[in-house]
């Protein structure tokens, strides 16, 4: 590859994955930093690397664990790269891997850890309004009207999308059923042993229409990490590499405008990123074998898969069935570990780990002969990001 060619394709790979046990929210016996260190050391072990080899750290969503503290705690001889993707939710998950890949391609660092740790017992909880007496700025245009949680923020977008394209509730339900189905074969999954039926979904309470309880992600404690290195170095390590073919991050115009004023509103915000990702990799949606798509809420997954070209908006009701979305035989196996809905809400880093497992052939819901494994991070937020991993360089 010419060194002046501006592409990440074939230049970096994920070579290690590590997780703590996943806990229900606030059930972790350990503080967040300890969980974080545990996941990082597990990822190094998985890769066959010494912790001393780790020299870079990238995270997202304002992770509280500062790379300088992590490196010091682990006794890492030299820290060469630390990086944070702005933005809340899981939108920066794939972007953090993309940044890690860029760092190794540029030679800033050799083994960059992408990590995320959450202990909501130790810290605050998502989805609950902050205790304020007054509110100003963008929140003042929504909060006094009772619109303040992520579910309430995104239900408005999904409702508009469903209206514009005649999308029915069963499409959202199919996303939830696929996640729960895959969780039943995954012993790590919080919802392992707790299958979901269409009837139970329909009977579940509304959180905010059009989201039932099962359309909303869990909240969990735990930590996860992956290690990114150069494609050359990856060839010498213990695991089959998951090669980075493409990564993209960003946002379409005006997606962060206040009070729901994004010019293109009924979108997951992937309309600009998906073509960029495919162009970098030189592939299209028909080439993708398996997808992990961040589920903050099921409706965002529907929009994200449409915007990645897997079906037209008008085909959503036919395409989004549990059969089509289930491994191994479905047309588009989706969230094969159970994802944020049923495995663990590790802000989507667990989805990146699952995408690696699919490339390695070690998923508990393995798709046969995976060549291309797609990750979609953080629909409906800004920035969002995506990542395409491949079995070959």
């Amino acid at each position, binding site marked *: 590859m010419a060194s002046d060619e501006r592409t990440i394709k074939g230049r970096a790979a994920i070579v290690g994955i590590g997780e703590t046990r996943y806990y229900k929210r606030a059930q972790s016996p350990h503080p967040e930093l300890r969980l974080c260190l545990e996941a990082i050391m597990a990822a190094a072990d998985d890769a066959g690397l010494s912790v001393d080899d780790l020299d870079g750290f990238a995270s997202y969503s304002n992770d509280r664990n500062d790379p300088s503290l992590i490196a010091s705690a682990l006794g890492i001889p030299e820290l060469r790269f630390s990086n944070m993707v702005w933005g809340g939710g899981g939108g920066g998950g794939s972007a953090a891997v993309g940044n890690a890949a860029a760092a190794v391609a540029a030679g800033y660092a050799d083994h960059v850890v992408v990590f995320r740790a959450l202990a909501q017992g130790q810290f605050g909880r998502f989805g609950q309004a902050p205790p304020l007496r007054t509110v100003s700025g963008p929140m003042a245009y929504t909060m006094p009207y*009772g619109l303040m949680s992520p579910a309430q923020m995104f239900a408005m977008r999904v409702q508009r999308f469903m209206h514009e394209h005649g999308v029915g509730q069963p499409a959202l339900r199919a996303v939830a059923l696929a996640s729960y189905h895959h969780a039943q074969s995954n012993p790590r999954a919080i919802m392992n042993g707790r299958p979901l039926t269409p009837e139970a979904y329909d009977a579940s309470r509304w959180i905010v229409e059009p989201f039932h309880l099962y359309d909303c992600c869990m909240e969990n404690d735990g930590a996860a990490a992956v290690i990114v290195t150069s494609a050359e170095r990856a060839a010498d390590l213990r695991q089959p590499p998951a090669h980075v073919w493409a990564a993209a991050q960003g946002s379409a115009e005006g997606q962060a405008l206040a009070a729901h004023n994004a010019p293109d509103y009924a979108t997951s915000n992937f309309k600009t990123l998906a073509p960029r990702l495919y162009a970098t990799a030189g592939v299209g949606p028909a080439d993708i074998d398996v997808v992990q798509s961040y589920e903050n809420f099921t409706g965002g997954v529907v929009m994200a898969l449409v915007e990645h070209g897997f079906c037209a908006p008008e085909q959503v009701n036919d395409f989004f069935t549990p059969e089509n979305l289930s491994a191994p035989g479905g047309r588009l196996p989706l969230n094969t570990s159970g994802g944020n809905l049923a495995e663990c809400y590790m802000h989507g880093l667990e989805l990146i780990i699952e995408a690696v497992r699919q490339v390695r052939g070690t998923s508990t819901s393995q798709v046969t002969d995976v060549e291309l494994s797609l990750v979609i991070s953080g629909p409906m937020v800004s920035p969002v990001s995506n990542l395409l991993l491949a079995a070959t360089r």
Partner: protein
Amino acid sequence: MAPMNGSYLPAGLPAPVPAAGDLDAEHWAAAARHELAVQRCNGCGRHQWGPEWVCHRCRSFDLGWAVVAPGGTIYSWERVWHPVHPALAEACPYVVVLVELPQAESIRMVGNLLGDPTAPVAIGAEVDAVFEDHPDGEPAYTLVQWRLRSAGA
């Protein structure tokens, strides 16, 4: 059912106060006068909401305010069943609407749809602004709420 004794949602939600630099102070002041004011660019004449320090179309810093007709159409909506604020513990369900203002380049505002919170809501329905005073707020404030035009005055 949401209580209807004066305000659509119960007391206890945070009071809106002007943003840093009084960026949106005119909106809240106009609401207290029962007028609907949004930001308008003195450079290109276009409206924007929420207020910004610069026009995001022509990038002029010369921004003013316009009082616009207090009506619009429902662009999207949601019915909230699960309260996430203690003040709303007994207030569910309630309806939040996203209203677009065709008279102002279809900028959008968030508010509540007054009336029966269990009634069906139609995207595209025409609505009129209702100025909901909160004289006991700390500080006092006025919200811009919405009512179906077909419901009459």
